[in-house]
């Protein structure tokens, strides 16, 4: 049932997103879009000694994309870059613990895509690149 995805913890993260905003001097900043619906997530990361020291996101989108990003960031803060790189979409689905249709899976994964691509950009271009 679709409406089961609107569980309490998801609505809570949607209405009160954690780590919302942007860092003043991030190590890396990255934006991803979902061209299907125009959803957008901007992430700023502070990376020190191979670890995420601070992370924030901004964006607009549906409850699933916003809540899953909020939950993902809560989980990622303090983790090493290698740990982030090992995150899979299954981890995200498990974190959400709801059944999603293929279209809504894209919503749920927008945050992870943004985070992983931010890390890739950081690794490719090094410190202080946006």
């Amino acid at each position, binding site marked *: 049932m679709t*409406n089961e995805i609107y569980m309490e913890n998801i609505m809570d993260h949607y209405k009160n997103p954690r780590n919302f905003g942007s860092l003043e001097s991030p190590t890396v900043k990255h934006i991803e879009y979902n061209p299907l*619906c125009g959803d957008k997530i901007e992430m700023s990361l502070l990376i020190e000694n191979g670890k995420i020291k601070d992370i924030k996101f901004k964006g607009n989108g549906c409850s699933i994309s916003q809540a899953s990003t909020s939950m993902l960031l809560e989980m990622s803060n303090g983790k090493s870059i290698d740990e982030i790189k090992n995150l899979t979409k299954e981890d995200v689905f498990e974190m959400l613990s709801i059944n999603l249709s293929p279209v809504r899976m894209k919503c749920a994964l927008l945050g992870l895509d943004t985070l992983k691509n931010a890390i890739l950009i950081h690794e490719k271009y090094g410190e202080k690149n946006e």
Partner: protein
Amino acid sequence: MKLLSMNEIREDFPILNRKINGKRMVYLDSAATSQKPVQVIKAIEDYYRNYNANVHRGIYQLSVEATEAYESAHDEVASLINANPEEIIFTKGTTESLNLVAYSLGNRIRDGEILLSKMEHHSNLVPWQQLAKRNNLKLKFFDLTDDGELDLSNIDELINKNTKIVSLTHVSNVLGTINPVKEIAKIAHENNALFIADSAQGVPHIEVNVKNLDVDFLAFSGHKMLGPTGIGALYGKKEILEEMDPFMFGGDMIREVKLNESTWNTLPWKFEAGTPNISGGIGFGVAAKYIKRIGIDNIENHEKNIVKYAYDKLNEMDNVEIYGPEKRSGLISFNLKGIHAHDVSSILDESGIAIRGGHHCCMPLMEHLGIAGNARASFYIYNNEEDVDTLVKGLEEVKRIFK
């Protein structure tokens, strides 16, 4: 012509009997693609079962039948919009039709201005934007009024002696606005500019008479007017089409080919290179015939009634923002305040209701409206008041979940 009853019409659309999540399906996304009547489905099947052959090739019986059916489909589509059959080029849809003009005719334009509006679908924006880049032309845009109509206050400035092309949506796929294309085409012509109408949301829903509108080109899609996907048309004035270079080259579009030069086939075949979408074309013709049988006036009237019914119901609800002018074609775009359109359509799906949520391929318009996207309910001949009532009930459920 006798107005067919609602039940008779609904019986022609077998898909309407489907259940979604155990509920009666309510299809409110005809602006994305319409459902297909059994007459269209059968015509496609009939071609593949009984006379499948290439067109304009063989002199054997099957090919003759296929050619006749494919050519007469052009006649059916032409007569729907009061064009001559040779002025109707079958394409894969509105997008290809507009690209055809932008490449074939647009590439010759070396300087000047192209005028569009802020309510264009990407398919009537990106081809011109890219042409402007290729040939260093200037892009201009009609602004919009708060009501969601074209702001014509500075039209004298926007259309001037430098204007080469004016290309506008006939009916907005988001706002439902019906643009005064006839009046604007006249002003374009007075300035020696060409006028192109993107009528993807026009031809299926309102009376379109190209001679009366006096547009130079008009693009539309089969699948939004009860026909199959992958087929659409470009209407163009004969004298302009004859002057234009072909858009694609290959089989069927030639008269004579030598190793170093070629001459072109007559209209419209000059613009239909390669084996065409024969079954699609035949289905498109049957769809046009179906619309003529129902009567475009009846379709227009039916949509006017149902959109008014829906507008009044939505307007009564709290926290609903409706976009677009009061006088509109058969669709309503709206937002429930604070709730993303994807969440709205996701929850409605649970009740068997199909609506579209997102930017509707109109990102600049969304930016103009200051929103990321919205939800859209669009209606066609097979929708009834019960569909609207189910939608309203579904929206109450959305509000309850997001309370």
